[in-house]
C-alpha cells in the first residue's frame, strides 16, 4: 500500500503557520467581530437591510487559512513515507471520517440541546468545517509518536457486504428523494421542517453505512483503492468548500455548509463506485492478454 497525492514535506511548516494564523483570525472575526479595515470591495449596487454595499472578506480569509493550513499539516509527505506510513494514514482517515460522522449524527439528534451551549452552539456549522481534518491530524500524530516503538494498531474493520451495502444504498436513496422534492418545490426551507430533517438524517446514515461496508470482492487491491478514494474525497470536499467560500454569501453559504456536512462521504462513495465501474469495464473489454 502506498500513499499518493501528498504535498511536499516543506508544506508542513507553512501549514502550521497558516492554520494558527487562521484560527486566531477566525476567533477575532467570530467572537470579537473584528474585520481587517478596507479588506473587501463593493459587492452590491444598492445596499439593503441585510447586506450593505461593502462586503468584508476577513472571515473568508480566516476560513481559507484554516482549511489550507490544516490540509498541509495533515497531508504533507513525511520524511519516511513508506508502506507503514500508508497504513497509518488509512487508519487515521478511517477514524476521522467515522468519528466525525458518528458525532455529527448523534449531535444532530441532540441539536436542540447543543445549540444551548454558549459560544459553540451558535457557530456549530463553522466549527464543523475543519473537524474531520483535526481528528485526522490528532489520530495520525498519536499513532506516529505514541506508538513509535511497536506500531501495533488494528486494521480498519468494515461492515459485511451482505446486508450492509444494500442497506446503506437503500437508506441513501430513501433519504435523498424527499429532500430533492422538498428542495425543488419550496424556495426556502427551514430546518424545522420535520420531513426534511428526518430524510436528511436517513441519507447521511445511509451514506455512512455504504462507505464503511465491504465490496463484494474485498482484497488488498480494494484496500489501496479505499485509501486513495478517502484521500481524494477529502481534497475534493475542501476544494468545493473553498470555492464556495469565495462564491456564496450569507444564506447561500449556509446551504453550502449544510452540504459540506455530508459531501465527504458522498464524494468517497462516488469515487469508489466509479473506480469499480471503470475497472469492470477494462476487464470486460480486454480479456487479460495471452492465453486468456
Amino acid at each position, binding site marked *: 500500500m502506498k500513499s499518493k497525492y501528498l504535498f511536499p514535506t516543506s508544506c508542513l511548516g507553512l501549514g502550521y503557520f497558516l492554520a494558527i494564523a487562521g484560527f486566531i483570525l477566525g476567533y477575532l472575526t467570530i467572537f470579537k467581530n473584528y474585520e481587517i479595515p478596507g479588506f473587501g470591495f463593493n459587492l452590491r449596487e444598492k445596499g439593503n437591510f441585510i447586506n450593505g454595499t461593502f462586503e468584508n472578506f476577513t472571515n473568508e480569509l480566516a476560513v481559507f487559512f484554516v482549511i489550507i493550513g490544516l490540509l498541509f499539516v495533515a497531508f504533507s509527505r513525511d520524511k519516511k513515507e513508506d508502506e507503514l506510513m500508508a497504513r497509518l494514514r488509512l487508519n487515521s482517515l478511517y477514524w476521522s471520517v467515522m468519528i466525525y460522522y458518528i458525532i455529527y449524527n448523534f449531535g444532530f439528534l441532540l441539536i436542540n440541546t447543543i445549540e444551548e451551549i454558549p459560544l459553540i452552539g451558535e457557530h456549530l456549522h463553522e466549527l464543523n468545517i475543519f473537524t474531520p481534518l483535526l481528528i485526522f491530524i490528532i489520530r495520525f500524530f498519536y499513532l506516529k509518536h505514541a506508538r513509535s516503538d511497536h506500531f501495533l494498531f488494528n486494521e480498519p474493520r468494515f461492515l459485511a457486504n451482505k446486508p450492509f451495502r444494500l442497506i446503506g444504498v437503500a437508506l441513501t436513496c430513501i433519504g435523498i428523494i424527499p429532500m430533492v422534492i422538498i428542495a425543488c418545490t419550496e424556495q426556502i426551507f427551514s430546518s424545522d421542517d420535520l420531513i426534511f430533517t428526518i430524510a436528511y438524517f436517513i441519507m447521511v446514515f445511509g451514506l455512512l453505512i455504504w462507505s464503511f461496508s465491504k465490496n463484494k470482492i474485498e*482484497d*488488498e*487491491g480494494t484496500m489501496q483503492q479505499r485509501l486513495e478514494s478517502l484521500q481524494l474525497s477529502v481534497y475534493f470536499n475542501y476544494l468545493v468548500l473553498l470555492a464556495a467560500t469565495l462564491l456564496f454569501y450569507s444564506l447561500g453559504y449556509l446551504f453550502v455548509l449544510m452540504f459540506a456536512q455530508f459531501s465527504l462521504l458522498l464524494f468517497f462513495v462516488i469515487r469508489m463506485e466509479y473506480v469499480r465501474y471503470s475497472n*469492470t469495464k477494462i*476487464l470486460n473489454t480486454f480479456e*487479460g492478454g*495471452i492465453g*486468456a
Partner: protein
Amino acid sequence: MKNNLRVQRAIKEITQAELAGLINVSRQTINTIESGKYVPSTVLALKIARIFGKPVEEIFELEEIDFS
C-alpha cells in the same frame, strides 16, 4: 518493479480469473499487478510464486527507480 506475470500465465495457460480464484484475490487485483499499477504484498507475491513453482525473484524484479 517489473514483473513477467503475464508470460508465466501464458506458459501455464491459465486466465486471470483462474489465477485470482487460486489465490483468493479479485481479478481486478491481478490485472493491476500485471499492468504494473499495483505492487502486491509479500504474502501475495509468495503465493503467486508458489502457484507457478518458481522463486519470487523470477517473477518480480526490482528496478533502478525502486531505490530512489
